[in-house]
């Protein structure tokens, strides 16, 4: 039975091979439909996850891996993210698109010019099979991180995720921006991996083992030397890189601007949530007794992260770059919840992660669907979106306002819970900063909404969406609204997962 605990991970591994074979066997013209295979894989994983027997919950595999409610919750979030990312890639691999483009180009010579430049900028995803394979290795990393009970496994999970993202960030390898994005991410990511390994080795020197159980016992037993404390802070720094915490956030804006939109969605949602899960595992699971050491550090960094992200977003002119800064701001809120070192804080972080996933994915799905039609990622391209596609504009409206934390949307409840937990932990100054950041973030989100609703469009061509995208957009919108209004059942589930 112990191996069976890993069966979701096995399914993902199997699907990596299926995708590899699929890429080999499917003839090139039909490769664009590989997304269906990938989506089927995500659904299969979801089914396996949903069928996890209750009596397995709480079982461990060799002190390395645990399948508890916490793990299941974050695994479902990761799976959901990957499923949404696959739907976003449709627009980049779908075979229907070039012909639409051609038809457009024939209609209007000026349009043809802009389409041509856009094609160079946006580009479709080459080698979809390889892309989906990388997506699934990243998923594997995230799934492992949710269950981690050993520092070495933490390293493996994190690197699985990060390595896949290195390649995916530079996936459009003929474009200078993408190469810059990949390079920046690679260099800073490697530095943070160095931090992680160094931290692990210091902790190994302290406890004589890398498993969480032994570490817990060692911390409970005796004085913790400064080397081990330094090791802990190094690990926090490495995870801080994943969630884009100040001052480890420097890669974010450039990578967000250069990488393909679905990859950015994965980075900003999946990678962040996996990093938060790992942080909760390490800090809450093992280092709770040393709360005095890390809680204040995290609180200070959370404040700096929020301020940097939200203030930095104001002057941006590229929507992906803007969302990059905004995602730094959200990392600040997540850190704020973790810095409470309380179970209420953990619950708040869990809820916030769910709300953030839905809202941010909704916004990225809009960007991915609109990019080719509006011609690029500049904010100006979104002028008058509501006349060209009321649905896209409405989802953008709901998603951005949910990110800003406006009732009755999910993001509001997440922010409220985080602020409440922080107030409970006695940091009034942090609550003040968090609350004022709501105002700052509302400003730049409204500036995007202003373009979509207030300004006149440059072209009146309606944007046509396919059925699946339409359905997903509506489902995300409905989920954001439902979670924002009927919070109790979701709060209960999150509480079960995150309040032991």
């Amino acid at each position, binding site marked *: 039975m112990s191996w069976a605990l890993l069966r979701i991970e096995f399914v993902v591994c199997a699907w990596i091979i299926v995708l590899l074979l699929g890429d080999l066997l499917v003839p090139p013209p039909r490769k664009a439909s590989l997304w269906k295979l990938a989506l089927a894989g995500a659904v299969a994983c979801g089914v396996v996850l949903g069928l996890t027997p209750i009596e397995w919950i709480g079982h461990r595999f060799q002190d390395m891996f645990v399948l508890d409610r916490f793990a299941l919750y974050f695994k479902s979030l990761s799976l959901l993210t990957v499923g949404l990312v696959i739907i976003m890639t449709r627009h980049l691999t779908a075979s229907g698109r070039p012909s639409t483009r051609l038809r457009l180009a024939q209609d209007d010579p000026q349009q043809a010019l802009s389409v041509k430049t856009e094609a160079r900028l946006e580009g479709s995803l080459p080698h979809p099979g390889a892309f989906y394979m990388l997506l699934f290795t990243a998923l594997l990393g995230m799934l492992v991180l949710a269950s981690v009970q050993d520092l070495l496994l933490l390293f493996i999970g994190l690197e699985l995720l990060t390595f896949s993202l290195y390649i995916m960030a530079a996936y459009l390898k003929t474009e200078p921006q993408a190469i810059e994005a990949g390079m920046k991410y690679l260099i800073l990511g490697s530095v943070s991996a160095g931090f992680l390994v160094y931290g692990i080795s210091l902790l190994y020197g302290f406890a004589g083992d890398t498993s969480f159980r032994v570490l817990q016992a060692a911390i409970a037993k005796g004085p913790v030397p400064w080397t081990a404390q330094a090791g802990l802070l190094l690990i926090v720094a490495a995870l801080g890189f994943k969630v884009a915490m100040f001052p480890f956030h420097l890669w974010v804006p450039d990578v967000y601007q250069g990488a393909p939109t679905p990859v950015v969605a994965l980075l900003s949602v999946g990678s962040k949530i996996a990093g938060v899960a790992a942080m909760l595992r390490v800090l809450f699971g093992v280092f709770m007794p040393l709360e005095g050491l890390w809680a204040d550090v995290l609180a200070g960094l959370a404040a700096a992260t929020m301020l940097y992200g939200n203030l930095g977003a104001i002057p941006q002119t590229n929507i992906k770059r803007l969302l990059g800064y905004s995602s730094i701001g959200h990392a600040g809120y997540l850190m704020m919840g973790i810095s409470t070192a309380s179970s209420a804080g953990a619950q708040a972080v869990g809820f916030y992660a769910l709300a953030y996933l839905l809202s941010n994915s909704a916004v990225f799905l809009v960007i991915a669907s609109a990019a080719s039609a509006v011609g690029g990622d500049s904010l100006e391209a979104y002028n008058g979106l509501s006349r060209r596609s009321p649905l896209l504009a409405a989802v953008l409206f709901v998603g951005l306002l949910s990110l800003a934390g*406006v*009732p009755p949307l999910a993001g509001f409840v997440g922010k409220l819970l985080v602020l409440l937990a922080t*107030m409970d932990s006695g940091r009034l100054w942090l609550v003040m900063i968090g609350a004022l950041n709501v105002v700052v973030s509302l400003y730049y989100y409204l500036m995007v909404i202003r373009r979509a609703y*207030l300004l006149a469009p440059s072209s009146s061509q309606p944007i046509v969406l396919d059925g699946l995208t339409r359905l997903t957009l509506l489902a995300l919108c409905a989920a954001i609204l439902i979670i924002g209004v009927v919070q109790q059942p979701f709060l209960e589930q999150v*509480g079960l997962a995150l309040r032991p």
Partner: protein
Amino acid sequence: MRQSHPHLVRRIAVTATGLSLVAAVWAVMTYDRARGGYQHELLVPWMTDLGINWHLGMDGISATLALLHALCAFAGVLISYAIKDRVKEYYLFYLLLISGVFGVFLSLDLFFFYFFYEMAVIPMYPLIGIWGSDTREQGVVRFTKEYAAIKLTIYLTAGAVLALVGILWLYVGTGASTFDIVSLERQFAVTPVPANLQRAIFPLLAIGFGFIVPLWPFHSWSPIGHAAAPSAVSMLHAGVLMKLGAYALIRIAMNLLPVGAQTWLPVLAALCVMNIIYGGFVAMAQKDLKFIIGYSSSSHMGYVILGLACLTTLGLNGAVLLMFAHGIMTALAFALVGHVYDQCHTRYLPDLGGLAHQMPFIGACGVMAAMASSGLPGFANFVAELFVFVGGWDRYRVQTICAVFGVVITSVYMLRFVRGTFFGPVKPVYAHVHDAVSPFARLPYVLLALVLLGVGCWPAPLVRLVDSGARPLIQRVAPQEVGRLAGQR
């Protein structure tokens, strides 16, 4: 629903607000004034872990304000027939705004109070940004509507989050384990909130809600916002939205933090004099009609704050009555300014004049609004202002004298407004403009003016309704005041 059916959309909006007006009137009629307290309650546990309940109900104060809101919303939807562009979206946001404001007046739970409060603020952005108008002075744009919209939204949200911090602090600091206002009242009656905590939280709530009142010096969003908004939105905005702040001060800050109120209300009373005098003088200097009404609104809200700062039954009654009277009056004023702007395409006072010839009906309404605003007997405002002045006399004598002087300033700029717009020589440029002719177009004006006159001539029922809410509140918050007054009698 398609954009091509604007009539259907309009009809749905009229039906919805009409029904809510009927419901509000019904709720007020069936409210048992003798019993007082919260009535028509609805309680559904919502987030049980945090003690959040879906708790709706009304006492005399919220019943009065809900009625005001229902009247303004109904009139506003009728006035909105002037909107011709993107009708469906307009009504979507407008109805969202209306439901948010209803939610605030009826919530008896701090969480939902904030929930609806913020929900009422956000639709203002698209409403002003899309359907609003730039403020021009001699043809030059002074403020764009986008600037007005973002300024308003950011100011109000900043106020809201400050108040939210105050609410969270109250919740955590007292270990309350519930957001339910009624439960909190009971709990605080047994174990009062520590005095220092009250004194620390009260300014957060007062400034936070003061943003929307708008209390001087946080008022600068308001005239710009009023001026840029389409007239139906200005009506709701000046008529009702500003009252949210004062209502929140009463329902949350004063009700739950009596010691904090005792300490800080004199400061509010001093600030509100700035509202009255400064707002009045600035209104005198304005040349844009909407700016005149906008500054006059922030000036009048000064009286409301003065009334509630008294912490006496009389003063609080006056404050709530004035909220009602001023809401109706200002809605009427914005509606007719909107009509003038629609017809003449300018709101610049020096360009207007003699319009009473072309639009006698609107002109008559303008005169009524001006008289009501100046507090002439016979209009509801007179009764309310009298209450405030008498209530304030004992405690804030200097402030009350200033406030009475404010009435003079009001009559100066309101008469100027009426004279400059409706009287004087007829200008040939406006030969073609029309009055509100059809009974349907006149309905909102008639409705609002009748309510103003009706309450002014026979205020007793409304006063008793307000009193049934204000008296227990003052008894709870400032029992010594009630005792003192009783002794005097």
